[in-house]
């Protein structure tokens, strides 16, 4: 059974139809590559799943039950985490402070509750070890490489025991070597049973890790098939409209 099922989702912003009757399903332990040109509706779909706004029409089922998200916190509480393209991390804080931002571990008795930096740091260390990343919890993020920053953002989703992780262009702004590191992170999350959506423009990345591929064009879903049954050429054709549907 699908973990998340979206049925006949439409989204209109005034006269603009960003999504038109899209069905979309996610299964645990699978990576779904979501592709499409700019303005195809990828971001809109992700924002609906992440609870930024409810769809104009359509139903969302999570674990078989209908859900309505009105703000991002609703989605997060339901086990859906987003790793944003700009990473949404604070450069001036340590890796550990970022992982625990908004859910800091405290110690001491009320009213003198203080930050338990030691526990947060050692928990972060465990998370980074699980992800096989050598990110050091007490280092400030500003001085880190793109791959390590990505690990920080991913460790955060890990901490919350997310069931669904939406990755928005995780490999867009980092070096080739780090791309491999990030893709390995994604595979590890998948192997732990998470459902992952990988939004990317980079065809090789999508093809190297995805199980399923979904292509959007002008708000319509034009393909939804196992990656093995597709090819980069076909997807390129689908994105540009040279191939109508597959």
């Amino acid at each position, binding site marked *: 059974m699908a973990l998340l099922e979206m049925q006949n989702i439409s989204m209109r912003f005034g006269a603009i139809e960003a999504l038109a009757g899209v069905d979309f399903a996610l299964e645990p332990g699978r990576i779904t590559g979501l592709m499409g040109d700019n303005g195809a509706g990828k971001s809109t779909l992700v924002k609906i799943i992440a609870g930024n706004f409810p769809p104009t029409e359509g139903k969302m089922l999570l674990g078989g039950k209908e859900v309505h998200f009105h703000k*991002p*916190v609703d989605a*997060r509480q339901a086990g859906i985490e*987003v790793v*944003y393209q*700009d*990473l*949404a*991390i*604070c*450069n*001036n*804080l340590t890796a550990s*402070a970022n992982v625990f*931002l*908004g*859910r*800091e571990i*405290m110690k001491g008795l009320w009213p003198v*509750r*203080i*930050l338990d930096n030691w526990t947060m740091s050692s928990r972060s260390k465990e998370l980074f070890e699980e992800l096989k990343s*050598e*990110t*050091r919890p007490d*280092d400030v993020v*500003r*001085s880190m*490489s*793109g*791959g*390590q920053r990505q690990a920080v953002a991913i460790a*955060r989703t890990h901490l919350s025991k997310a069931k669904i992780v939406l990755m928005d262009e995780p490999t867009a702004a980092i*070096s080739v*070597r*780090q791309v*491999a*590191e990030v893709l390995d992170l994604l595979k590890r999350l998948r192997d732990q049973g998470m459902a992952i959506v990988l939004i990317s423009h980079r065809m090789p990345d999508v093809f190297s890790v995805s199980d399923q591929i979904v292509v959007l064009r002008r708000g319509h879903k034009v393909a939804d098939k196992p990656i093995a049954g597709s090819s980069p050429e076909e997807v390129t054709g689908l994105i540009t409209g040279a191939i109508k549907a597959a």
Partner: protein
Amino acid sequence: MTTAPTYQTGYTAPRQSFLQKLLSKQPFWVMVAVVIIPLIMTVVEPSFRSAFFSGENFVNNTRNFAFIAIMALGQVAVMITGGIDLSVGSILAVSGIVLGLLMDAGYSFWLAAFAALIAGIVIGAINGFLIAYLKLSPFVVTLGMLSIGRSLALAISNNKFFHEFGEDEALLQAIGGGKTFGIANPVIVMVVLALVMGFIFRYTRYGRHLYAIGGNEHASQLTGVPVDLLKLSVYVISGFMTAVAAILMVGWLGSVTNGIGIGYELRVIASTVIGGVNLLGGEGGAFAAVVGAALIEIIRNSLLLAGVDPYWQGTFVGIFIILAVLLERLRGRKVG
């Protein structure tokens, strides 16, 4: 920004020792300057020693910068979130006038001081509301409040000069102008408030979230930090700190006019910048505010004792502000 070097997978920057960390902190270098400037002056001008290190001058010095430092403690909270509060000089005037007006009318010190604090808090809350909830620019809102506050001080005082404070006059003057264990009272208040703010910045969730907002406001929002409420709160803290400074200052001066605190916003912001607080947000601490204010007072006092024409004071303070930013840039490059 220079392009970051591409590290190999798993590369991590070398860990900094305690000494390296200390040497990379701006407040440390400012502290060094605070100690060294009087020593250099002593060597250059032998007569300086007896003047500068006399007990009376020392008490005056520390008290003079305590008022600015207390206000700077509130300003640091604002600046950590990436904001700025230009209205502190005017808040000082409103709180001071409220205190003078009520005590002159025969109310007790405690009631008048309470009203002065409320005045500071209310003005800070208005600033904060406009900035956090109506998303107006902190610079513009507090610039407007600078004008409004000054005008309010004129209006409610009816341009009167208050120098009689009713039956609690002695208490007011003892609190602001007196000493405890040989230390000027405002200095004691400053130290206590600095410790409290330092604790809040370093050890509480609230403090951590202020830095997060300064680092990446959008990210903080996404992780569930109550960004708007926290932004409102820092302007309230700034208003409160300024009102505390107003009460102490009026007690020390023994009088209050609506001209009190003109131009103080610049001295307060200069203190924080010299202390190493980043105007873009996300960096700074309680110690920075205190040493920054101390350095300005040291420069001012040293020039005065050295017989330099007071007209030049602004030039020297200005040079130190620019040096502070330059130092930050140099450090920034070294760190990466």
